[in-house]
């Protein structure tokens, strides 16, 4: 298992960060459109996982320790450097989401980067994501709503984690 990152690895991380920096900006439109038509639970189920995708994608491409955390955090940093309403909150969300994804790969001592790991690495970031939402929105939404959103966000993350794995596997 190689621990050092080559310049090509860094460039691939940059590609993932830039791609998802652009994708995150695009993803708000379908999120709000689905939310307007189907409500927040449907919007969370269909789109929240997009914001967790950078981690399993980077990990599946690079297969190195830290790649999930770096992929997600750098994408969040790029998103936060683009002037937008949430600002630096994107970086905070991305760091903790990336950390939880990284835990999945660390648990197998970075020996497994398969579809199961990608699905779990896509689902687990729902925990810090919804916890941070509680800090922001806790005075508006009751706890039962957050529990429901957690389940939906985890399901969404699992679906998009699997998509990230399939896309990376086809192209590697």
């Amino acid at each position: 298992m190689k621990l050092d990152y080559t310049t090509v690895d860094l460039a691939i991380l940059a590609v993932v960060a830039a791609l998802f920096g652009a994708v995150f900006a695009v993803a708000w439109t379908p999120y709000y459109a689905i939310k307007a038509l189907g409500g927040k639970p449907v919007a969370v189920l269909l789109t929240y996982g997009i914001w967790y995708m950078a981690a399993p994608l980077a990990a599946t491409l690079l297969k190195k320790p830290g790649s999930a955390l770096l992929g997600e955090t750098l994408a969040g940093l790029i998103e936060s450097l683009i002037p937008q309403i949430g600002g630096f909150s994107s970086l905070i969300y991305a760091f903790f989401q990336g950390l939880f994804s990284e835990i999945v790969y660390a648990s197998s001592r970075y020996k497994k980067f398969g579809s199961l790991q990608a699905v779990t690495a896509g689902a687990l970031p729902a925990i810090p994501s919804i916890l941070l939402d509680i800090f922001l929105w806790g005075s508006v939404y009751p706890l039962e709503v957050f529990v429901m959103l957690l389940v939906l966000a985890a399901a969404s993350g699992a679906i998009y984690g699997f998509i990230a794995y399939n896309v990376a596997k086809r192209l590697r």
Partner: protein
Amino acid sequence: MKVRVNPSILFFYGLALTILAFILGSLKPLAILASVNLAVGLALGFKRYKSLIAAFLLSLAGVAVNALIFAGGEPIYYVGPVAIRSGTVRGFIEVSLKLALMFSATLIFSSLTNPRELLKSLESELGLPKQVSFTVSLSLRLLRIFESDISEIQAIRRSRGLRVAPLTPSDWDSFLSPLLSLGLERGRWIGIAAELRGFSLRKTKKTCLKPSFLDFLLLILLLVEVLISLIFGNVF
């Protein structure tokens, strides 16, 4: 006269304000911090970020709707059939102030510096590893290229009768594959080219962080804001 503040200090100021927005639970310090910083942010960035300010105001309408539907408490007022509960007003005010604080950090940062200056400052003054600054600065350059790739892909999808904006997971699969394919090819060759030009041998020029009077003013302001939060606020 252009205001020059150290980009690293601005970055940490913005990040600190965002963290405070998350952890503060009390309205008084939130109101003080949000109003001071929003006033500064609007003074600096009103001309340049008019559309972003309009989007922010629109987002407050979304907060109001969510607060009306989900917030709890006893009904205190009726507007036709809609009950405004005791939790609605407080919830709307608290979330709006938090969003205002985060938004003001964006306005202040974006008006006074840019990502390139920030990376240069973080690398030379604060010792950010060159690998990280290389990755972030390459990402920022690739971002514009990906934005034009996305426009092309959307045009192709439109001409084939597919949804322009991906809505479902399978839409995202077909949307991301060509983007990533193009991106990985670019990334590999950029990485090889950078290595051939001696990236791994490059030494970073380190300079000392020399805060100016405005930098110290900003740091003192941050300290005062943290003290206000601790004295008046329910942290968590």
